[in-house]
């Protein structure tokens, strides 16, 4: 027992000591050197059919079109996300990208420790100080944010126009400011086209597990459909797969999120509120390549085609032309700034 404790203590000391070692990395990039990019995925990694896959697509496109070298790291269960980022930064990557709001604190910390490395965070959540002022990220860190409220506004209008029952539904994953942004935009969109509509809104939980609980998602959706809702918009990761299942079971409609989710339940997915994670990642890499990279907050909204809704040959028979025209009109008004979509409660 004593020996074991000593061993553990020794390992612990070594571990802590290693924390303070900063590998120098490649000191100065030699001339003609290609750009090295490191990407750390959020839980789920590639094949999540959502923003990890989006980031992968963007990076892969950059690899082909810009000739950069990309390395991907998929963290497992637990807390080794930070070590993935740290590894890439220490290896002297030119740009390190963290995919998911969960990397916010780690990226901020590492950007301070490695001022010569450039960082980008997809869905990076910008902090505010107690007086409510925005705390800007470090100068070598780009926060890639999306105006989810704008895309959600359009699908809110879509849900109310197609649903026709004066009741529309919303299912959120983890109750958090990021997901509330979707809800607030959605509510505003519903109110715009149907002032007396009621929005039934429910979150699957208060922990990250709430993004991976399709059983709960299905029950929430069944209960909303039963109360007279015809269309539900979900912003809840794979919990939303349960919402689609409920739509099948009750012959009603659901709206997907992040990526085009039509194939998850063909005929029951009215549309999807898509986020252009691929374009944002590609943009960030291109800027590094061109030497134009600046830290700061980047917002991708309807105007930048950073968010939008799916309207293609799969779902056009579900959306009447009048409705589509109305949505396009709303889109233009938002782009022109005549409609300002709220993003907080």
């Amino acid at each position: 027992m004593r020996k074991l404790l000593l061993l553990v203590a020794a390992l612990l000391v070594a571990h802590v000591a290693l924390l303070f070692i900063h590998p120098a990395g490649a000191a100065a990039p030699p001339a003609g050197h290609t750009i090295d990019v490191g990407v750390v995925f959020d839980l789920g990694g590639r094949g999540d059919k959502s923003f990890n896959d989006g980031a992968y697509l963007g990076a892969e496109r950059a690899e082909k079109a810009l000739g950069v070298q990309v390395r991907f790291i998929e963290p497992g269960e637990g807390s080794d996300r930070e070590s993935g980022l740290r590894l890439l930064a220490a290896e002297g990557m030119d740009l390190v990208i963290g995919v998911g709001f969960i990397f916010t604190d780690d990226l901020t910390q590492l950007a301070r420790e490695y001022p010569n490395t450039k960082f980008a965070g997809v869905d990076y959540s910008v902090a505010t100080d107690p007086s409510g002022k925005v705390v800007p990220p470090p100068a070598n860190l780009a926060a890639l944010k999306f105006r989810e409220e704008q895309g959600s506004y359009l699908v809110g209008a879509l849900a109310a126009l197609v649903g026709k029952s004066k009741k529309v539904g919303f299912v959120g994953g983890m109750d958090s400011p990021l997901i509330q942004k979707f809800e607030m935009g959605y509510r505003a969109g519903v109110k715009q086209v149907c002032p007396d509509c009621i929005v039934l809104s429910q979150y699957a939980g208060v922990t990250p597990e709430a993004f991976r609980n399709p059983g709960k998602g299905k029950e929430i959706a069944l209960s909303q459909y039963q109360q007279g809702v015809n269309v539900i918009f979900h912003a809840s990761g794979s919990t939303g797969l349960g919402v689609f299942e409920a739509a099948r079971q009750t012959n009603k409609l659901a709206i997907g999120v992040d990526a085009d989710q039509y194939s998850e339940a063909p005929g029951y997915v009215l549309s999807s509120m898509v986020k252009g994670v691929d374009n944002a990642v590609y943009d960030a890499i291109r800027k590094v390549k061109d030497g134009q990279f600046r830290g700061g907050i980047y917002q991708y909204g309807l105007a930048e085609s950073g968010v939008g809704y799916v309207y293609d040959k799969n779902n056009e028979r579900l959306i009447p032309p009048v409705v589509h025209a109305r949505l396009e009109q709303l889109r233009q008004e938002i782009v022109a700034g005549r409609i300002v979509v709220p993003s907080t409660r």
Partner: protein
Amino acid sequence: MIALAFFAQTLRIAIPYLLAAAGGVMSERAGLIGLTLEGYMLGGAFCAVAASFASGSPWLGVLAAVAGGALLALLYAVSAIRFRADQVVVGIAINLLAIGLTRFLLRLFFDSSSNSPRVAGFTSQGSGTGFGALVQNPVVWLGIAVIPAAAWLLYRTPFGLRVRAVGEHPAAAASVGVPVARVRYLAVLVSGMLAGLGGAYLALDQHQFTDGMTAGRGFIALAATIFGRWDPLRAGLACLLFAAAETLQIQLQGTQAIPSQFVEMIPYALTIVALAGVVGRAVAPAALGKTTIE
């Protein structure tokens, strides 16, 4: 109408809890901590989908889930009984194994880290929200029957008597010729099969496997086991209580009458209350967690 919908939803939410909690009671009454229920459920859920996908038959999916749960349970039993490993440590390891293994196999078989393709299940398209969809599903019937069946097995059969004996005083049981290790193996295997069945319900109800889809339901079943004072009927009631609280919160959505944080807390808070002895005395099986005595 509202009451009926409420009851149907409570039952739907309760089925996986009931199956896993019956397993939890069997395992814990034999002296083996039921921390692994979560892992059995997840493993069962994956096996159900893999077999249903390969064969097109949800029945084979159910059988595979039972087998998958039993396999993980066997691993637990061998580590804890044969090699006398610490039950809590092995239990956590098996849950982590189930998470990692299902994710690995999901990617290997279905090339996705999120979810499997759609498979055959018991409920049909457009079957609605009422009892129609519920009675179609044979796993629902199993979930309802499992509690009386577990009570009968535990209190009315020689095997049940032996299970209770090895959980209370294995040395005394051994002295009258009860094969302690064999009884424990069987009890753990039964618990794995039942929890695997709970996982099969979850997965076949969704018609697919989703990474980490059990989302803590095994731990809620364990909480019900303890809150039900290791008695199948009381544990069953605890499951219904937890499910009813969840249903209430879902049905009152939008009104924010009950904060979701509060409902998520209920099973665990009640478990602490039960262990603190507020509602009657909760006395665990005396040999629970001890594997060194035979």
